[in-house]
């Protein structure tokens, strides 16, 4: 068993070295639109997220290298903003409005029902990668409360019956 520990340690060390060496250049096109100055970091990350839907470890690494800063530094900047995501989003995105009007008209129940039916909490994605659940502060559709948006389409005056119908339609 000790040989095992020994081998594991060596393996780990090799893996570490490999990790440091592997350097894919998937984001060069995006990054090269910007001067390699720290102030363009957020813009570049916005473009990357536009392309991938999220910021992968690789994206952070490559950007950090491009801008000449450490990975920890780059992550520190982007993790400050709620708009950046670090996990691949689901195929479908459900956004529940939690604005005042929607709140008064029961968006809490709506969100709870979604969490229960999908088996995830807000901000998470179902394990099969099908649906991401998010909450937004206000959709600006207060007259339609409670409202939610599925893949960019607004659903007004939601009821639980409607919700089940919508969920059934998502594949």
């Amino acid at each position, binding site marked *: *068993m*000790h*040989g095992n*520990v*020994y081998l594991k*340690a*060596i393996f*780990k*060390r090799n893996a*570490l*070295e490999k990790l440091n060496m592997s350097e894919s250049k998937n984001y060069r096109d995006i990054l090269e639109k910007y001067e390699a100055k720290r102030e363009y970091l957020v813009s570049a990350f916005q473009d990357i997220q536009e392309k991938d839907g999220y910021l992968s*470890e690789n994206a*952070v*690494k490559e950007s*950090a290298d491009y801008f*000449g*800063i*450490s*990975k*920890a*530094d*780059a*992550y*520190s900047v982007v*993790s*400050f903003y709620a708009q950046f995501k*670090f996990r691949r989003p689901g195929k479908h995105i459900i956004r529940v409005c939690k604005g005042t009007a929607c709140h008064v008209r029961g968006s809490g129940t709506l969100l709870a029902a979604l969490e229960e039916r999908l088996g995830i909490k807000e901000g998470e994605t179902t394990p099969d990668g099908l649906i991401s659940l998010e909450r937004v502060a206000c959709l600006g559709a207060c007259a339609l409360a409670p409202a939610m948006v599925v893949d960019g389409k607004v659903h007004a005056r939601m009821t639980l019956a409607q919700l089940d119908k919508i969920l059934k339609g998502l594949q």
Partner: protein
Amino acid sequence: METFTLNIDGVVVEATQGMTVLQAAKKAGLFIPSLCAHDELDPYGACRLCVVEIDGVRGTPTSCTTPAAPGMVVRTNTEQRQLQRRRTIELMMSGHPSPCLVCDSRQDCAIEKAQPTRATSATRCGACSNRPGCELRGAVLGNYERDIGLPMIYDPAKVERNDPFIDKDHNLCVLCGRCFRVCEKIHDKPAIAIANRGKKAKISSEFEKAWSAEECLFCGACVEECPTGCLTDRWGKWFGLPDKVVESVCALCPKHCKISLKIKDGFVIGAKSVSLKKSDSLCALGKFAYAQLINARSRLTRAYVRRGKEQIPASKQELIERLAEIFKSADSKALIIVSNGAYFEARAAARALAESFKADMVEPGLDAGEESLPPEVLGKLSRGEYKAALVFGNYISGENASKIDRLVIADFLKTDAQKYAEVIIPTAILAESAGTLSGENGEEKLCSSIISASGDRRGLSETLSELCQILGLDTSKYRPASEKLDAAFRSPAADKSAIPARFMGHYLADYAPDLAQLGLPFSPNELGNAGDKDAGSYEIIENKTLVPNFHELKVRAPEVAKFAKPGQFAILMANSRSERSPFTIIDWNADEGWVKFIIEEVGRSSAEIASLSKGDKLWVVSGPLGTPVNLELFAEGSKVLLAGGCYGIGAIYPIARALKERGVKVTAAIEASSAYMLYYRDELSKYADNLIIRTRDGSLGKKGGNLDTVAEIASEYDALIAVGCVFMMKQVASKTPLGEGKVQLCALNPIMVDGTGMCGACRVSVAGETKFACVDGPFFDLCKVDFVELGKRRTAYKLLEIEAMPRHIGGKCHR
């Protein structure tokens, strides 16, 4: 340089161009509280403690970021600024475990408990390794009040032990940013930074991964600069402040960096870089492993010489005489192995011996092993052609050692080969002995001896020089020339994959196991921790963490369960090498054959027990022991007050139950440092008619402790039982609660060994008489116990207890 004056709090202060207001004040000896400011780092303005008022400047600027200017009029301590500071501190402290800072008993407690409790989680200053010399404590003590009464936040998930050498407890972090600022200063690109924001903000590497996986080099500068107990050296943190810090040379790899060693009571308790310059930055070996290696448990201390078949302890004289005789008898069939990383003096003497006795001489690298010896030497070794050999370090296997007629081993650690040795020379290493090494640029570097070597340990250079003198050999002409560092050398301080796996042939990870997390191998025959989980026979059914540091342990122990009575205890051992420690039996079920204990983590033994999980087995559950509480003393319908603190909250539970069953009216008074440390409220409410809660910081119930509850209401009661730490019981006793003639008891928990009255370790003085807590107790008359003596006896082994700590923390036993 241009100098000018400004006015701070009515004092005319001189400053130079480029100084901040804070620096000008400091230079003039004026105090402005500050935390994030650091003389060697750029101004940051994060903690906002150093806010001041400046005439003509809007708002309240931070003095650490405001440049001093001629004629400035600054006020640092107006009523408004004091209030602002207090508010800032309260906000900061609502997320930092700080009940000790507002506790009314903190002065008495600091005297009573001079050493912080060696708990696993720092839930308060009294359980924080950083308490001695804590900068945060210094800055906020006296300015902290819970005016607004913000809820206290403590998150056990913020305690992280996923990295080698560094314990991280983000509960303690105040986001002053010193760690990543110092990281950036030294390494240009910081390996850590603040991730996320708001209450999720924390110091982390990218994607909050383990630091070992990322850019961090484990230079440990962040640990040194952290003003709180957030970042700590897992191995050395409980030793407290060093007596002195002395500059030395690290000899663990050929780079020979300058290193500052922290010395306490003649031991190296830690190391740090000599400055915050990149060129002085240390690697994980220097910063963390150095102290672990020099303090390794398996260091050799005695010199041995074989007589007949036995290795017998020998004097210096005998040792040298035998060495001389062995070399003379070798008949040109001798081998000498002394590493090229040894001191020049030792190498010179070894070369002189080799030349004089026509011995084969090998100078392997520090990080080499037997496999690096030249093939012809290996061949001769395996054919048993050497009559004599002198080996410095772990460069030959037991098998080859057995084939050498007369083997001399000099080493600082025990090895397999030593059992075949005719002479064993225990050597002083690193800061224990003086000598010369090559500097980075080929200059000679003199290393002085900083601590004295204990036992028979001496530098090998001294022993060999003496030997050469007796043999009439001149060693000076064999002195090696200082060499420039090889151009191909990769510095472990700049690349953690370049950290050498071995030192003098010994695998470093065996002695500083955290190195394995950096990819360093253990020696192929290292037994690791396999021996730690000896199979006992008492299975753990459940280990539930109630609050940080407190665990409810349910154990299968039918014999104990069958006979247990309220107030009794049992002695537990996690494994066969554990200390025996007593724990109160909280609950039991004879039919199902289980007992429950509350395990409070206060040191190595309790931490060992607490680290076990469901299905693991305890080596010993010996009990029930002690005299149960005499229920006859409490009449039906009488009123009894039970006062519990720390583990005592659990310990009063079985008493409450037994009294309730007798028809006694029970009031349970419990205290905790803060709301997040209270447990067993529901359990106690089942049997107590009344539950009174006090917290030391006032975060739940009234502010204060059991002493206040007792002072307030004890006169209404017929009897009192207090269980908890010595300090709490002593405080309650000082209120002489019920007056003469009433039943007032405490349960004592001194150091115990057998628990059956044989060893006498648990001796306590009660009303001037000597009693044994294990058989006469644990219950004694509260007002007649000599608590001062008890307190002293309980701390009798504190140094050994501190030494034992790091060898367990992290679930690994250090050799």
